[in-house]
């Protein structure tokens, strides 16, 4: 292997796949990056067996080749290296990284040689997997931004309780009417449904995406890369972003039948300004128990009253906000942190809430939704006590 590459390009590639390097690798090889040089691309891959990522950057390859090298060591060196053109060569069984320490003359020279390990057995990302394929098109109804928004609005509600493994992921369902993502931990539930998006093939399927995959995907979609396709297989899913691919194991289903927990007959309707309710909830929660975070919401005609008390701090908080409410007076207790999480996702504008009693989930949704979009949250109350 022999090539030259811009330090910034090399760093961008390493940084892209670094999160997929196993922190506690099942086998020593998985603490390495797979490096492949061919044509005018340098390809970097990492895997912790559940999640595998591959990305390529432009490079001037003189001699193609492939090897593996300690991911952390290579990342630390390249991160600290000033902007320059680097030479990467395999010499005497070692990966040699060298170049000037900066652009322009008189910057000095650096040379690092690193032990390599044979790439044999390194998990490779296949070019394609069996399953239902979706093609994305930038600027259309079905583009990267939709996926990013759906993940952002739902994945925070994923359960961390390992005793209910299906809830440890985001349900992604696609069908002829559109697609939906759902996440819940039992205390709250988030669903984002987008109708009117059509994709080739028109298959119907449901998969459960691990949260690590969702966060990597979100991170990548913040950058310049756009989704080209996704393939939803039986046990794994492959996302193609052009120069970058992510392959992830799926969480085994079936997902919970969440439709049946969406309450019907919540007739106490409240409309309140998120920009009032969110900061009020934040302030009142300062005096909630640090263990339960319980805040009480009392509704009366066109009024929302929030109260909390803390035995630890020794104090009580109370705020009264204007709202639109015409139903019977109602008082319900919630975990303020869960409430805040939801309000943050509503961003600005008005929130519509539908409530029933002290033990039924509240339905929370933004008053304004884009066409074809249906976002709503369920928030279970707390049973208050001593």
């Amino acid at each position, binding site marked *: 292997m022999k090539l030259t590459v811009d330090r910034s390009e090399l760093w961008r590639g390493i940084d892209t796949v670094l999160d997929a390097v196993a922190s506690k690798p099942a086998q020593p090889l998985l603490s390495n990056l797979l490096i492949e040089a061919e044509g005018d691309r340098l390809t970097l891959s990492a895997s912790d067996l559940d999640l595998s990522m591959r990305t390529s950057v432009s490079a001037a390859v003189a001699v193609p080749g492939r090897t593996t090298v300690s991911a952390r060591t290579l990342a630390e060196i390249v991160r600290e290296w000033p902007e320059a053109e680097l030479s990467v060569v395999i010499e005497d069984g070692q990966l040699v990284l060298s170049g000037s320490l900066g652009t322009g003359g008189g910057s000095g020279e650096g040379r690092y040689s690193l032990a390599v390990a044979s790439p044999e057995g390194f998990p490779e990302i296949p070019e394609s997997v069996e399953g239902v394929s979706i093609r994305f098109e930038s600027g259309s109804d079905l583009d990267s931004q939709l996926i990013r928004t759906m993940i952002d609005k739902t994945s925070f509600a994923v359960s961390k309780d390992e005793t209910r493994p299906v809830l440890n992921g985001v349900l992604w369902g696609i069908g002829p009417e559109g697609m939906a993502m759902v996440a*819940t931990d*039992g*205390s709250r*539930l988030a669903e984002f449904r987008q109708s009117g998006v059509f994709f080739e093939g028109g298959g119907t399927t449901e998969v459960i995406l691990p949260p690590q995959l969702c966060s990597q995907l979100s991170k990548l979609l913040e950058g310049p890369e756009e989704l080209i396709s996704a393939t939803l297989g039986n046990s794994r899913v492959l996302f193609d972003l052009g120069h970058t691919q992510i392959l992830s194991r799926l969480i085994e289903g079936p997902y*919970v039948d*969440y439709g049946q*927990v969406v309450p019907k007959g919540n007739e106490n309707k409240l409309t309140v300004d998120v920009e009032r309710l969110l900061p009020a909830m934040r302030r009142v929660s300062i005096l909630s*128990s640090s263990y*339960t975070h*319980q805040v*009480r919401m009392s509704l009366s005609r066109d009024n929302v009253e929030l*109260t909390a*008390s803390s*035995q630890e701090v020794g104090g*009580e908080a*109370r705020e009264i906000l204007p709202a639109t409410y015409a139903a019977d007076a*109602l*008082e*319900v*207790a919630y*975990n303020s942190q869960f409430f805040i999480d939801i309000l943050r996702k509503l961003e600005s504008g008005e929130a519509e809430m539908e409530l029933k*009693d*002290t*033990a039924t*989930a509240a339905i929370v949704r933004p008053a304004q939704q884009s066409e074809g979009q249906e976002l709503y949250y*369920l928030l*279970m*109350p*707390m*049973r*208050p*006590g*001593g």
Partner: protein
Amino acid sequence: MTLPAPEPPHHYHRKVIHIDMDAFYASVEQRDDPSLRGQPVVVGGDPEGRGVVAAASYEARAFGIHSAMPMKTAMRQCPRAIRVPADFGRYRRVSAELHEILYQYTDLVEPVALDEAYLDVTFNKLDIPFGQRAARMIKADIRRQLRLTASAGVGPNKFLAKIASDLKKPDGLVVVAPGAVHDFLRELPVAKISGVGEVTRLRLLEIAVTTVGELGQVPEEELVRRLGKRGARLHRLSMGIDDDPVTPEREPKQLSSETTFTTDLYDAGEMRSALKQLAEGLSGRLRRRGLSGRVLTLKVRYPGFETVTRSQTRPLPEDRGAPLLRRACELIERTDAGRRGVRLLGLGVSSFGGEESRQLDLFE
């Protein structure tokens, strides 16, 4: 009937079990830390200060260490004893697990301390006909589920069950059958009766009483003359009679607090500040007991002892002072207070939730 009955006033003999965990705190420590097993372990305060021994393992007891002994003395008697600070939170959790086991047999469980409880298994949930069998099963459950040992005493009342549990510690099981009560008590030293301390023991020694059997020979009037009211109780106990029922722990149904004014109040501000004090005091008492209630009741007494109450029920239980006060002020509006003088104000909270605050789950 004023004379003491010769037999408990029951148509049946009760079956009472006294469960006493062996060296409880020390055993929990040894269970949770294998390096302490087989070692003299003392649980309790700092020997530098005035700490006392809260519990001593049986290995430590061999050195004469016992609970309530100053830690300094204990460490002198056995310098290689391992001192462990008491972790009451953990002991309370184990105690709650113990109670769970006991409640599987009967709801008639009277906890005496973290490590001690009475059960009345006369009629029990598992229809076990013999107290001895129930005690054996409970001991086995404790061993299996808590990995600890307990001593059990079985008898027709709490007094006999408690003495019996103490006789074969650790891991003992002693049964006092109703027909064997007198034999059981005859040779028993009087100091085994709970409540008979050193002073009483010496008083009894003056009349040559050292055993419970001898105590039974003393006429009741003489015991009352020598020991006061306790004498009558001791007389009954010496014959094995104890009617004290096993009383399960109960929460109060209402907590309230009231205040009477030296001169009748007419001023709304004065009434409000009286209510504020009541609400805050009540809130503190509710919180100390971990209670919170849905119903608030206001009591108002006018001059001439006419008393009215007003109450308000809310969907959520309340234990906080400020909301209680707000509601009390709403309630007082619904009385004649102010138009008429107020001699007494009271506030009470009832309809307790009784459960800890908990996040509800969509799927449960």
